[in-house]
């Protein structure tokens, strides 16, 4: 296996005197997909949010470029490389196009480059025909694809997906799976949580199980 992109070490999270995560170590590799399984409430979402910098751990270290850093000091600099997608993605008010272009506003692209990137991304995801539609009026499966595209367009190194296939019909699941495989083939490191381990065949390279706050 190649060198890890990021290594999170000793992640601990305590909330109301309950240890949600206990000394969890996880390495993220480029072009590899990790499945995190575990029962509801096992801490999967918390772990992903800590990796994404959306939740503060009680203790954690991050290793990258051969150096170890505290989570607090390093997370701001690496957060741009990591995107977290909710189980039910939140699409902002506006069209599919405006949702997909949201993150690009904070890059150095000019208007023309931004428009071209959005067009390319919508074609990549097969969403060109719904580009002008209000995002919130779309079906759950299409909304999930919009969320994937909104993340993909920013070319993050790490994509964290919280139960991405939950509540999806078979067709939507296949379409979503196809997009994820393409993201993986582009070198993206993907972490997926699920309590159903059979749903994402052909995508998973590494499987961890989270129980009692520990990773097995």
């Amino acid at each position, binding site marked *: 296996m190649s060198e890890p992109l990021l290594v999170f070490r000793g992640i601990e999270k305590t909330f109301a005197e309950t240890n949600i995560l206990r000394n969890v170590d996880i390495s993220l590799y480029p072009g590899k997909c990790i499945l995190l399984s575990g029962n509801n409430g096992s801490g999967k979402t918390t772990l992903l949010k800590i990796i994404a910098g959306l939740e503060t751990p009680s203790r954690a270290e991050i290793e990258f470029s051969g150096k170890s850093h505290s989570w607090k000091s390093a997370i701001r600099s690496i*957060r741009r490389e990591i*995107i*977290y997608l909710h189980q039910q993605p939140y699409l902002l*008010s506006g069209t599919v196009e405006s949702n997909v272009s949201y*993150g690009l506003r*904070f890059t150095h692209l000019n208007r023309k480059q931004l428009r071209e990137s959005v067009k390319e991304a919508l074609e990549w995801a097969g969403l060109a025909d719904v580009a002008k539609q209000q995002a*919130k009026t779309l079906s759950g499966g299409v909304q999930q694809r919009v969320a994937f595209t909104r993340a993909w367009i920013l070319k993050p190194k790490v994509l964290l997906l919280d139960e991405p296939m939950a509540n999806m019909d078979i067709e939507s699941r296949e379409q979503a799976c196809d997009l994820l495989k393409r993201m993986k083939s582009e070198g993206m490191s993907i972490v997926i949580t699920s309590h159903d381990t059979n749903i994402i065949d052909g995508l998973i390279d590494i499987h961890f199980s989270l129980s009692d706050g520990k990773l097995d």
Partner: protein
Amino acid sequence: MEGMLFTTQKALHLLVTGDPELWSIVMLSFSVSLKAIILTTPPAMLVAYSLVNGNFPGIRIILAVFNSLLSVPTVVIGLFLYVMLTRQGPFGDLRLLFSQTAMVIGQILLCFPILVALGYATINAADRRVRETAITLGAPWWFTILTVLYEVRFGLLAAVLTGFGRIISEVGISMMVGGNILGYTRNITTAIALETSKGEFAQGIALGIVLLVLAFVLTTFLTYVQGKQEMST
């Protein structure tokens, strides 16, 4: 009954014929209250956002203070401001007493806790995923705030309309720190109070009609905005 009918007719006549004194009072009311609401809204929304998403000690206490301030009578705010702005007061040198600026300041003091409390309730009810989505997609902190506020814009607009309705219809502050000076600080409510005390009901009724129409328009718009909010969620 006949007198009442005659007075109402006279009031309607004043309104329809565009009586300059009456409409200047109406315009002054709107001018003062619009300035107050425009100046209050951005800082109040920022405070509300910070109370929802901030992580500092005393948030509950600050919130309790704002909620308590909702029920402070306008005359008490007027009295407080009067004491501050009077010649002998700490800000007496500014010579703001009996000016439109004093009225705007008073209405800001009245409106700020209303907007913070209603803004807090609206932002607190916003989907947590909005903020997380903005952050994870690389939005800087200020754009994250704008994104969250935009997603709950209808609720916030309802809060602003409620605040505006409250300040344009208040009388205590305007009377105490405005002084009810014709053409300068006389607004709808102080004019109604004065005309009624003089037994001149026509102008009072005409101004009352303006306030009632405003209340109706605001309520209708609020209902529309709340409908939009429900649809967007």
